């Protein structure tokens, strides 16, 4: 059904022209020469002071990458990327790695202040900012600062940039890096394996509930620079961590590449909540510029009864190619994917998830809301599969799309594969069947259907949304309000 005025206005507010984070920081940088070859990889590795095994790993990935073809199955169209016309390493001068807050260039601190990212521990502690949250700030190719490290260390939680972790905890990194997203996984993941420059590393030991939220804020600043971040999060038995990721970039006419890899591992009874508010520069209203966001995110529920939950609010990027997935390997493990993808202007989104049920009694839930406006194209692409031994696998999938204007497109491409008779899969692109019991409960109490559905969906998305920082949560909630509107057919 057509959208009403209020919805249109709300979407306009987040239109490409309204991009708030398009400013550029004037700062001296150190760059590696443009282009991609073994020397660049050696340069990055040397800059990071990496052990030999890491360099070998990168070089092997590069060799593999040279033999691969760029994937073309997604519904996104863009001119061929010249991988030799990109800077693979750019760092603010004198900033080869994270340091203490006092040593960070004040210009950088001002940038994060403008972006609304709380880097000052004192401020947070003094209650100036509402929530206590540890931040790893990644600026172009390096992590500039990681806050609350000491307090986290007391709890036994390791939170640092991945470059530091490779130096300080090589055994841990070596054990887990590439174990969820293999080096050979796909074109962009392989490229990332060769040239990744920074990202976050989180290790939550057995039985520890991480005392605060962890967050990484990615900022692309330099021109012609690609950002290749690598994030690795490990939750040991009974551990819990909630992790947030935010990203922005300046307004430019050129397209910039962001090819990240995120790997999550949960062992027995552990849980990771991973939330993203992706707000890369989407390009201008004529489709010039913007970030190409080609990201591989995957979680491995390795232990029994473990849980991984992905929440994403996607509003930015010229092109998004991203499928945060869960491998439900451990018996009784659970995967969740909640997504709100808003596309406007000339944006192209091809996003979704994969839930691979391998263990017994595994369950997964996918809630995807796509909103397209302008001349954008918004595709949900998802896979749910139950393997032979995945007895009692359960999945519920709901994908709703809302179109605003007749120049845009919304597409749904689910792949549902069941190889076990006790599997129970439901895929719906309508709202009429959403938890009929709850709906009936509301209706029976005089709440109109649309409100009832809003209530129910908001209800179960909320528990994830409310884990986001306040400003993100407000934004996300607004978006959910929009996405629900008109969903009653």
């Amino acid at each position: 059904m057509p959208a009403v005025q209020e919805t249109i206005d709300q979407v306009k507010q987040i239109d490409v022209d309204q991009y708030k984070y398009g400013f550029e920081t004037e700062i001296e940088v150190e760059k590696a020469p443009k282009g991609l070859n073994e020397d660049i990889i050696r340069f990055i590795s040397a800059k990071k002071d990496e052990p030999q095994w890491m360099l070998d790993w990168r070089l092997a990935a590069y060799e593999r990458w040279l033999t691969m073809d760029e994937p073309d199955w997604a519904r996104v169209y863009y001119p061929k990327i010249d991988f030799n016309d990109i800077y693979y390493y750019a760092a603010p001068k004198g900033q080869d790695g994270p340091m203490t807050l006092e040593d960070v260039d004040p210009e950088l601190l001002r940038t994060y202040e403008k972006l609304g990212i709380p880097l000052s521990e004192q401020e947070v502690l003094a209650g100036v900012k509402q929530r206590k949250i540890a931040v790893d700030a990644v600026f172009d190719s390096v992590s500039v600062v990681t806050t609350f490290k000491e307090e986290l260390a007391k709890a036994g939680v390791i939170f640092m940039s991945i470059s530091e972790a490779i130096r300080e905890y090589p055994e841990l990194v070596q054990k887990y890096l590439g174990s969820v997203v293999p080096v050979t996984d796909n074109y962009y993941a392989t490229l990332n394996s060769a040239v990744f420059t920074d990202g976050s590393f989180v290790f939550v030991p057995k039985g520890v509930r991480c005392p605060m939220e962890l967050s990484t804020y990615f900022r692309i600043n330099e021109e012609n620079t690609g950002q290749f971040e690598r994030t690795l999060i490990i939750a040991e038995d009974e551990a819990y961590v909630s992790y947030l990721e935010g990203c922005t970039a300046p307004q430019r006419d050129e397209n910039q590449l962001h090819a990240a890899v995120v790997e999550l591992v949960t062992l027995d009874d552990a849980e990771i909540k991973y939330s993203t508010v992706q707000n890369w520069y989407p390009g201008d209203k004529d489709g010039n510029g913007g970030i190409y966001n080609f990201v591989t995110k995957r979680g491995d529920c390795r232990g029994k009864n473990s849980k991984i939950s992905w929440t994403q609010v996607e509003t930015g990027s010229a092109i998004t190619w991203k499928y945060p997935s869960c491998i439900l390997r451990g018996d009784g493990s659970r995967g969740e994917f909640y997504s709100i993808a808003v596309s406007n202007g000339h944006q192209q989104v091809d996003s979704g998830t994969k839930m691979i049920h391998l263990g017994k009694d595994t369950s997964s839930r996918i809630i995807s809301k796509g909103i397209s406006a302008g001349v954008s194209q918004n595709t949900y692409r998802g896979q749910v599969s139950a393997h032979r031994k995945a007895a009692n696998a359960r999945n519920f999938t709901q994908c709703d799309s809302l179109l605003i204007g007749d120049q845009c497109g919304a597409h749904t491409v689910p792949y549902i594969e069941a190889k076990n008779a006790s599997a129970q899969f439901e895929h719906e692109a309508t709202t009429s069947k959403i938890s009929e019991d709850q709906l009936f409960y509301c209706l029976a109490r005089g709440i109109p259907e649309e409100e009832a559905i809003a209530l129910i969906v908001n209800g179960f998305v909320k528990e994830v949304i409310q884990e986001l920082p306040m400003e993100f949560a407000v934004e996300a909630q607004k978006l959910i309000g929009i996405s629900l509107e008109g969903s009653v057919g």
Partner: protein
Amino acid sequence: MNVQSKIVKTAAEEALSEHFLNALGSLPGSPAVVQGRDKMFDALMKNGLPTRRVEAWHYTDLRRLLGSVPAGAASEDATLQAGLVENAKVLSILNGQIAEEIDGLPEGVSVSSFKDALADGGADLHFADTELDDAIGQLNGAFVSDGYQIEIAADAEIETPIELQFVQSGEQAHSRTPVVFGENSSATLIERHLASDDAEVLVSSVSHVSVGKGAQARWIIVQAQNEQATHLGQVNIELAEDAKLELYVVNAGGKLVRQEIVADVKGSNADLVLRGVNLLGGNSHTDVTLKLGHNVPNTTSNETFRNVVFDKAKGVFQGQIKVAQIAQKTDAQMACNTLLLSDDADFSAKPELEIFADDVICAHGATVADIDPAHLFYLMARGVSEKSARGLLVKGFVAEVVEDLEDEAIVDALEDIISDWLQKNG
């Protein structure tokens, strides 16, 4: 991804090539048709039979699944069966050929042989609109030998169902059925595919159904071949203004089955109703692929597919609904429900929406599950044994779909097919 690298030919591909060389001389066709056949076959062989890397064939890797190809025409005679319903006018195609004089047609129905059309060059092989991944269109276009061309005259209301009975006693057959429902006409056509016991057959059947302005058409496909049969079917549909087509597809046989339905809703107020029942057992592989395009404003479509999968069978449903930018006020609903009744069976579904218009109601739903234990309990608590309770529930699950048809005799006949199949395989 629709690109395949050059590959070594499989046994089936070799056999097809050899068969094509041998048969080309004897296949009917004007020089233009022969040229068309050549092009079709070249197109098919250029990339080889489609593999799972071709998106449209992702779950049916024809190259791997088509192990062997029976060569040439059948040696034994095929036997005509009684019509699906008593009052039907049966037109038969035995081993790919029209074997009898065409007579006794109801008034308003004209029928001619596609073989004649091929010979005099009047046949349209639809070469121009055969897409790269259209292996069935290419295979059929290369080998087509005969078929009925049917035209229902404008304003004719045909009460007698017309049954096209394809019986195969062995080897290969490739037929094509162009059908035109004239303006404001109404008629029921039954496309029924049978094969003699145990004969290993390869059948391709392509229909082009054009439903004229205001026409009410019913098309019923019953595929009940033996457990050795390979069936590659394709129905191409065009709906004009105010036209309505009810399409019923029942698959109750075959070893390797792919039924493609390609529908183009191109007249406003047109309505397509599609119901499918797929009964899968043994080692069979059955794929129903729907490509539905809504291309003008104010059209509706409604699809329901029910599948039951036993033994080591593999089922596939791909359903794509595409709504063009101008096709405002489209109402398209699609559901695909599957009962997966064996741990060795598997089912893959890909219900796809591709929407470019904003003022539309489009929905799809897909479920895969075992029999609901609550339903089973309800019946068992009332003294029904588990076995018969399961039987009842499975039958009810699929039979429900054919009951939408407003022709009791056909509903009964389809229900009998379902019951017989479940009796034998359930």
